[in-house]
């Protein structure tokens, strides 16, 4: 099977393959242009007659469970990433597969982390054919250098749900590591030593996979409440010593930035939102987990407190700062996709206003609406932005694939999308003539905030009008680009190979861009 075939130019002017890993693809057609038809995918019908009436689905080991699920060559195995860099289960699955001599698996994680670097040996020896999911750090480097046998496919969190729901990806076996579960397979993320808050990223896997295994290190008698994952979807349960490393689950990436430059960007962003009238009583926002985004949340909190206002809802990833806002009644609800620290976990466990969400409720584009488009303002990052506001979040300017999409693409549908980014990193200007990889179309990106000026998308005449008397340094994106190049010099285009190593999907499952091999 060829990794890819039949190159075409999509509606964004990008060259993408129409066949990926043997499956035909729809090239990106524009925002909202692709209209799916037909019915959703569905897993096989099961019968209680085949499952123990006492509800005890325990098998002795993960290996037994995988064998009973019929693990064989060419299957798709899914995992979730709620344990982030502290995941102990995904690697074990492929150790077992390798041991059993199974080949050509497709790993379908909701995201991968540096802790999954040991899987490189299985990508090399053919146990794993490819990863369809974010590839960070060492795995991203491996893929970028063209060493993965199959083609990488990058999807947003919402896009992953959509792909499963629409049958673009068929999961043979889903392995759901759970901080707490009962023998029937009900599971949650709020209790146990590996508590991670919720298990939303595993929802599609539980609903649509042929076979579902729940693995836990905290087995409780039925019922495991809350049952974020319903045991009625689950085939087997497994008790292990440890599913994750707690200190890496609640990772240190969620500290407020101490960098004065980033604090300045955060403050400018908050002031922009204030002056544009976005921060008002009853508004809603989502800020990511990065240090700059966290600081913006703190400025929002100060503003709300000062004016005696509150947000109607705040979108997680949650952390102690967001929880503090909820507890101080500066916001009425947290609608949370993942918890980044123990305060987030505690709040989700104890506070009914801290609600767990899934990519289905928040992001899935092939649903009857989702939350993302209702959010007043979303603060996101990017590795690059071009003069047409198109943005890249997966590759660096040298072409290396180093980040996943996460919920980034899905969030672009909010009423105002702001990217606070430094004008240059070391010597690398962030604003380019053309992004290395297109992840988000410029028409959805409204404002770029840098330490040296703020650019508003010309399409947002309303925002330009509101900010015309602002004391903030409002500039055109062209001016910002020139300013960066005056300081850094004009960067060359990276010399990338023609060969494609991965594709980036848009939220509707169409192919928006290709990632090229890096010459080594």
């Amino acid at each position, binding site marked *: 099977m060829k990794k890819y075939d039949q190159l075409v130019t999509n509606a964004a002017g990008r060259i993408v393959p129409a066949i990926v890993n043997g499956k035909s693809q729809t090239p990106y057609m524009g925002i909202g242009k692709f209209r799916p038809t037909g019915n959703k995918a569905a897993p096989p019908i099961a019968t209680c007659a085949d499952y123990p009436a006492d509800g005890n689905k325990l098998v002795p080991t993960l290996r037994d469970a995988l064998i009973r699920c019929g693990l064989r060559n060419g299957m798709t195995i899914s995992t979730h990433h709620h344990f982030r860099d502290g995941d102990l289960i995904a690697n074990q699955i492929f150790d077992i597969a390798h041991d059993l001599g199974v080949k050509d698996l497709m790993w379908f994680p909701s995201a991968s982390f540096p802790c999954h670097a040991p899987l490189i040996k299985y990508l090399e020896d053919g146990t794993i054919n490819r990863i369809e999911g974010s590839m960070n750090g060492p795995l991203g480097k491996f893929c970028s250098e063209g060493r993965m046998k199959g083609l990488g496919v990058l999807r947003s969190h919402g896009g992953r749900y959509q792909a499963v729901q629409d049958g673009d990806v068929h999961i043979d076996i889903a392995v759901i590591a759970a901080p707490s579960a009962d023998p029937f397979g009900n599971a949650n993320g709020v209790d146990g030593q590996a508590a991670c808050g919720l298990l939303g990223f595993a929802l599609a896997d539980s609903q649509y996979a042929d076979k579902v295994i729940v693995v836990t290190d905290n087995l409780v008698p039925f019922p495991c409440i809350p049952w974020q994952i319903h045991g009625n979807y689950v085939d087997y349960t497994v008790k292990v010593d440890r599913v994750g490393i707690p200190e890496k689950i609640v990772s240190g990436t969620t500290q407020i930035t101490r960098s*004065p*430059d980033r*604090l*300045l960007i955060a403050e400018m962003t908050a002031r922009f939102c204030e002056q544009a009238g976005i921060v008002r009583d009853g508004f809603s926002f989502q800020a990511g987990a990065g240090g700059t985004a966290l600081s913006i949340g703190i400025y929002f909190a100060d503003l709300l407190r000062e004016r005696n206002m509150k947000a109607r809802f705040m979108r997680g990833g949650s952390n102690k700062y967001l929880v503090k806002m909820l507890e101080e009644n500066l916001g009425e609800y947290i609608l949370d996709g993942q918890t980044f620290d123990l305060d987030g976990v505690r709040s989700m466990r104890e506070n009914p206003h801290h609600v767990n969400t899934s990519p289905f409720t928040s992001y899935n584009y092939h649903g009857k609406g989702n939350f993302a488009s209702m959010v007043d303002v979303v603060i996101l990052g990017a590795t690059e932005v071009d003069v047409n506001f198109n943005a890249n979040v997966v590759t660096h*300017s*040298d*072409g290396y694939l180093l980040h996943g999409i996460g919920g980034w693409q899905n969030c672009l549908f909010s009423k105002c999308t702001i990217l606070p980014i430094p004008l240059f*990193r*070391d*010597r*690398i200007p962030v604003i380019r003539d053309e992004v290395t990889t297109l992840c988000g179309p410029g028409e959805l990106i409204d404002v770029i905030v840098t*330490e*040296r000026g703020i650019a508003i998308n010309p399409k947002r005449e309303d925002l330009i009008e509101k900010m015309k008397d602002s004391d903030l340094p409002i500039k055109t994106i062209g001016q910002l680009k020139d300013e960066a190049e005056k*300081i*850094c*010099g004009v*960067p*060359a285009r*990276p*010399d990338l190979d023609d060969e494609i190593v991965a594709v980036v999907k848009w939220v509707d499952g169409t192919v928006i861009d290709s990632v090229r091999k890096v010459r080594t």
Partner: protein
Amino acid sequence: MSSNIAQVGNKGERVRSDCFVTLELTESGGLVIQPESKVKALFGKDILRLAREVLEFFDIRHARLTIEDSGALSFVLAARIEAAVKRLISAEKEFLPAMIPENEYQTARDRQRISRLYLPGNTPSLMINAGIHHPDGIILDLEDAVAPDRKYEARFLVRNALRHLNFYGAERMVRINQVPKGLDDLEFLVPHNVNLILVPKCESAEQIHQVNERILQISKRLGVKASIWLMPIIESALGVVKAYEIATAAENVVSLAIGLEDYTADLGTRRTVEGTESFFARCQLVVACRAAGIQAIDSVFSDVDDMEGLRQTILRSKALGYDGMGCIHPRQIRVIHENYAPDRDEIEKAKKIVRAFEEAEAKGLGVVSLGSKMIDPPVVKRAMKTIATAVKIGKLSQNWREEA
């Protein structure tokens, strides 16, 4: 190390926006340049071209140059390579980056100097974004913030920064080394539109004369016309005793700063938060400055995480009569501005005085009065300064006259 190899710059995990160069002069083989850079994909060719240009500028035909680059901007790369070259050969000429038009400004004698941000003279990553935080001044420090064995290379970096790095209107200051050694630093500063020179550990008018003599010498030789202000730093018992003599040593002394770390060491005591041990010195310095008609600048506050401590220190400092303070982290700038700036009562009072003055002027009255009180001209002048500061710092709208 053999005398035909020079190493300059910084490298390592935590180093950013800098480079480490190793230059070896060879007998033959031409120029062999090996750049290793994390920005190689985008700037590899630029780095190579610049390196070659610098070596050829100094007529070096055969050499091996390795560059371990962590994203250094061109002016940094050029400074590093030039310093390496001059470690090995003696050359009069300099490889100068362009003087950007944004840096061709002069500063006023009595301009606002509430905050001055110290920047270690051999650490480019801290210089690059210093201006965006809008301190009143930036200090490129060649003295205590640079290790003795790095002082040589730091001069090239500071010179290039003065020419090529945009500080967005901050007064561009340099702290030279102690006189007489520091006099040689001036060669790297005077021709490059430095606005102000800080003279550390100053203990006599004579040291100020020496600095001015050297400035004059260089200016004459190169036709430099711009005036360069001096800010002596008083850091010893002798300096405190001679404060007035130093403050009045020359026309271009615009301010005295006090440095309390060295001063307390000189007294044989310890620096405390309350500052009782330095109370006399701080009063003496303010009195000397006021007597000489110049600004008094307080010592830095060294705990960058303690914003409340900083605020308290500033309020005491302001009460003693100080006009401003040095800062060692951009986060201190706002606190310093806000707390040295006039408070609400001061602003309200100043507004009344300025309004009364303007009304009196409009009516052609020679005497300004507010209620039953006569207002003296110096009071009006101070009120105007208060208003100007409040507007500049954002505590008062530019259009305050139209507002209720």
